[in-house]
Every structure is written in structure tokens, then in C-alpha cells.
């Protein structure tokens, strides 16, 4: 059953998820840059 949101709930942020997403973006971005600069992802492979 879907979770109900009561009117008294506070929006304490989902800190772990937000931070994870932040760091995940950094890791994925850096990894892709490294792969491109090292030639592992060749020109023309990305459509």
C-alpha cells in the first residue's frame, strides 16, 4: 500500500539519498570524463 503523507509530516530532507545522488553524480561524471580522455570511449561511439 502506498505510504500516506500526513499534514503534520515535516519535510526533513532525505539527506542520505540527496548526498548519495550528489556524490554519485560526481563519481559517474569523473569516470566518464576519464574514460573519454583515455580513449576508452572512442569518437563516434556515443550516438
Amino acid at each position, binding site marked *: 500500500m502506498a505510504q500516506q*503523507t500526513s*499534514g*503534520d*509530516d*515535516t*519535510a*526533513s*530532507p532525505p*539527506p542520505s539519498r*540527496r*548526498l548519495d*545522488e*550528489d*556524490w*554519485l*553524480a*560526481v563519481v*559517474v*561524471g*569523473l569516470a*566518464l*570524463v*576519464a574514460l*573519454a*580522455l583515455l*580513449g576508452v*570511449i*572512442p*569518437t563516434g*561511439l*556515443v*550516438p
Partner: protein
Amino acid sequence: MTTSTGTTRRSPLLWAVAGVVAVLALSAVVRWLSKAVPAWTKGTGLEGVGAAVEYPVYAILLGLLGNAVLGATGLRDRLSGGFRTEFFIKTGLVLLGASINLSVIAQAAGPALVQSVLLISVVFGFAWWLGGRAGLDDKLRALLASAVAICGVSAAIAAAGAMQAKKEQLAYSASLVIVFALPSIFLVPWLAELIGLPAAVAGAWIGGNIDTTAAVTAAGALAGEQQLQIATIVKVTQNALLGVVAVALTAYFALRVDRSAATTEPVARQLWRRFPKFVLGFLATSVIATVYLAAVPAAEGKAAIGVVNDLRTWFLILAFVSIGLEFRVSTLRQAGWRPVGVFAAATVVILLAALGLAALLFRNFSA
């Protein structure tokens, strides 16, 4: 044996994966359209339009279309776990860092910081004051002021956490951000061209006045490459100041409004917790690419950065499609029109103030 608990736990993940697949499928259509339409219209009376309409337009429109279809079939809420706008845009911005020379960031950082501090102070103050005059709840007006003055949805989330606002207030503020950001994506670049703003000023205006980072990137991409770079630097600077505002809000609400919200966490730790870490990735890729380009032959460097730019375009398309998919007007109807009026007035103030500051601080910018 599969327990019912196990099934309930897995289902959201499976739906989220299906949501990501839906975003990817729509993004593939966007990528295809952005290449096919100029080819189809070449040599016809629509050649100019076909060439001018770029991927952010297709992405947002297809996202909105997907939103309507999924909403009508009742699938939108289930798939929404896969609409990761924040992750897609942040990864896209980390990749964007690789195409911005470190010297450009160094030159633009000073004026971007001055512009951001002034804009946040003036616009936050105005929205807070007007919200008070309009009789809005303190937490709601702080949320709206943070969202309009700093960086849209991310700022609203951080501010909501800082002062423990209600979920409904956060959902409402986030919806307002998107409602106002969507037309801005098209309007601001068009106005910048109409006024004849230089690329750097246009970029600083886009980065300064449009709330949400994804919309800034979409507008910058429509305006041009240099506009996109400056807009991103300005917006990233505003993002970096988010922690300062969140800490100030935490202190204000704990000391003046809601004493139960007091925290014993040291300020430095709060600042680090609130700091958007993708800013570090953005700077890191700029440093890496600047060093790399100085070390390899020009043609080799250009080809490699071209690959990074293609990847960046994909992540931005994923983010823009997600914006369209996440768009909802229903949340707005619940809170009445006074908050909309406050947000609209603050949007006009930031539009004008950002234009003035951009023209003043970036008029002699050259990179």
C-alpha cells in the same frame, strides 16, 4: 519463497528502473529528432525553424507529452522514482566542467560571486518581506524565498530540511519553481537576443535569474555555448552558497520561531553537509580537461572533449525529459493564489535585478 514484504520492497525499485527506461526511451527520440528534423527541413521553407529548434525544446515537450500519457494511464506516480532530474543534471554539469577552461572559471568566479551574494540578499529579502505582508506562514515564505533567490528545487529541499517545513509546503514550492522555470527556459534566451546582450551578459542573466539549475542549463543551451558556460558558472556559484543560507535558516528558526528545531551540530559540519558536492566534480573536470588539453596534440584533445560533450548532451536531455515528466499543476491549486503572487513578484524582481547586475559585472568579460 518470496514473502509479501520482499515483494513490496522490490516493487518500487522495479518501477524506478522502468521509469529510467522510459526516460531513456524518450531521450533517444529527442536525440534522433534533434538530428533528423534539420535534415528533413533542409531546403524547405521550414529550414530556419528546423535548425533553430534544439534538443532542450524537444526534450521538455516530449517529457510533457509523456507526462500526459503516463498520467492518463495511471503509471506516472509508479514510474516517478526513475525521473531523477537532480542526478541527471548534476552529472551533466560535472561533464560540462570538462569543456570549460579553468581560466574562464577563474575569471568569472569573482563577478559571479558578487552577483550571487547581491541577488540572494535582495531577492530573498524581498520575497520574505512580501510573503509576510501577504500573511504567509513563516516556513512557507522562507521556502519560497529560498527557491526563488538561490537555486529552485534544491534550495527548497535544503531550506525545508533546515527548518523542518511540511512536506506539502515543499511540494508546493517545488511545483511553483517548475511552473515559472518552464516558460523562462524559452523566454529569457529570446529576450537576451532581442535586447542584443553580449554572450557573457546573457549567460550571467540566465544563470542569475532562472531558479532551477536544470532550467538554467536548458536556457543556456538554447542561447549558445558561451552563454551556457557563463550561466553554469553563475548558477554553480549560487548553488555553492546554498549551505550558508540553509545554516542561517536553521539558526533563525531554532532561535526565533521553533525552539524544538534547535540543533547541536557544529556550523562547519552543517555547511559541509549542505554543500552541493557536484560543484567539486564540476571544478575537478575543468582542472583535468585544462591540464589534459595542454598536454596532448590539439586534434586529439578536441576529439576527446567532443566525446565528453556528447555524453553531457545525453545527461542534459535525460534531465530535461525528467523535468517534463515531473511537472504537476495539481499541487498548486491546494495552496491558493497568494503564494503564487509572492513568487511571481519575486520572479520579476530577480529578472530585473539579475539583468542589471549581469550588465554591470559582465559587460567587459572576455574569455
